[in-house]
């Protein structure tokens, strides 16, 4: 009984380490595909559209509503202490430091990450990746690398968009509906938000999340069992692993940046 449990644990450990090793080899291969992208930027532009542009709608809507909720909740709390004028700062700091990068990454994993995994998994199941190899075209450079860099570029831009629309939503509710002083709202934000502490750190977070989410999505698609069930499981794993990785990394990064 104990031997069997130990054997299972050992097997799980070996399998996990092997998977981590393959994932790292894959990211090295994708990074080495940068030269191909520089030579043929069209590959990247196409993926920026499908990975980034097609995710704008969900990011915009989510950003707006999150900002509106922040404005509403913030107003209720701050007004208890007569601090409504700090609403702009509260909304902006929450979005730029935390909610913008984190929620963008979670939404990106759900919309673009799952699509990437399914697409690559189906390409594998229908032998398109093998077909590319036999046509002397490296699928890691031709297919995976442009998607990876598109994710890396898209997430920070989407996070910036999320934060901007969130601030706009907060202003709509705070300044428009609840009558918070407009000047105080914007001046508080301008005075309280620090370029390096808030904007740069938020940007670094979104870059890290972009790399991690896209890497997980591509790896899961490329490494999946090439059957409909295998692709389905890989897609689920993408969303679960990405979400957990984003939340865990957010804590680590926050501790490092603001600790």
């Amino acid at each position, binding site marked *: 009984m104990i031997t069997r449990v130990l054997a299972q644990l050992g097997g799980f450990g070996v399998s996990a380490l092997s998977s981590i090793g393959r994932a790292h080899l894959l990211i090295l291969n994708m990074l080495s595909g940068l030269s191909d992208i520089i030579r043929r930027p069209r590959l990247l532009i196409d993926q920026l559209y499908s990975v980034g542009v097609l995710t704008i709608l969900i990011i915009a809507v989510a950003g707006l509503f999150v900002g509106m909720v922040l404005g509403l909740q913030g107003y209720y709390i701050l007004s208890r202490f007569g601090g409504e004028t700090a609403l702009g700062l509260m909304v902006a700091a929450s979005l730029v430091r935390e909610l913008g990068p984190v929620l963008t990454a979670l939404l990106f994993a759900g919309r673009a990450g799952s699509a990437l995994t399914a697409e690559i998994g189906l390409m594998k199941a*229908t*032998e*398109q990746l*093998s*077909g590319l*190899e*036999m*046509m*002397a*075209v*490296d699928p890691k450079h*031709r297919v995976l690398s442009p998607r990876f860099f598109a994710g890396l570029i898209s997430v920070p831009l989407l996070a910036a968009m999320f934060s901007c629309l969130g601030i706009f939503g907060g202003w709509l509710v705070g300044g428009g509906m609840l009558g918070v002083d407009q000047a105080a709202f914007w001046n508080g934000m301008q005075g309280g938000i620090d370029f390096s502490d808030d904007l740069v750190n938020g940007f670094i977070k979104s870059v890290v999340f972009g790399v991690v989410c896209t890497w997980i999505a591509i790896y899961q698609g490329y490494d999946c069992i090439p059957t409909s069930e295998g692709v389905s499981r890989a897609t689920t794993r993408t969303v679960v692993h990405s979400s957990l990785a984003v939340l865990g990394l957010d804590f680590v990064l926050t501790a490092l940046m603001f600790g």
Partner: protein
Amino acid sequence: MNDATSTNQTPLVQIRDLHFSRGNRKIFDGINMDIPRGKVTAIMGPSGTGKTTLLKLIGGQLQPDSGDIYVDGQHVNTLSNKALYQLRMRMGMLFQSGALLTDLTVFDNVAFPLREHTKLSESMIRKLVLLKLEAVGLRGARDLMPSELSGGMARRVALARAIALDPMMIMYDEPFTGQDPISMGVLVQLIRKLNDAARISSIMVSHDVAETMQIADWVYVISEGKVIESGSPEQLRSQGGEWTQQFIQGLPDGPVPFHFPADDLAKDLGACL
């Protein structure tokens, strides 16, 4: 039986003492093969014997456990990645599913290898693509998407793509599986004609006996990791061993038994009573 190496030329593909396993399952147990140049060579055997795996080993997509594979004199399993990709530019492969890129039209699929590997102008690529599509009878389907093609048409487009770079050899993975009689007849004719007209060497993996024997110059029969027999289709028909005869004629019982190994029936029935 005579070996394919009896031709004057060096064989295009030489396989020596090839061993390959998946997990604990042995797929190839020391097989040797010579694939001659300019001929249609068929590799036949029951499902699950590793015929597709053999094509992947020849194409360098899989690494053997031991043994050597030479393609046009190059030792495939020791080639660098760059050299392997150079070699693959001279190979074509027709996958069982066609493996067309689903986001590209028929035209763009056939143009794909030309755009990737040559610096030809778009007007030249257009002419070449239309000629390749004409060769497979699908010039009129150039604007269709792969999802709009029948299985037979998809394989013909894949064939046009496989010959786009005028390769020295084409590997066909179960080209006739799931085809209606007309599509099958078209593919049979195309494979033979392309082989002869373009002086390509063809390796065809199949278990469709009638169609394969119709166009093959040389046949290898493999089973349980070994080459059972090899020879011309006529030789196999007239002099093939018991196993080969059962396979060729599709007999339900013989060296490959109809019954899965089990205890004595009477004993089994007795146990139930």
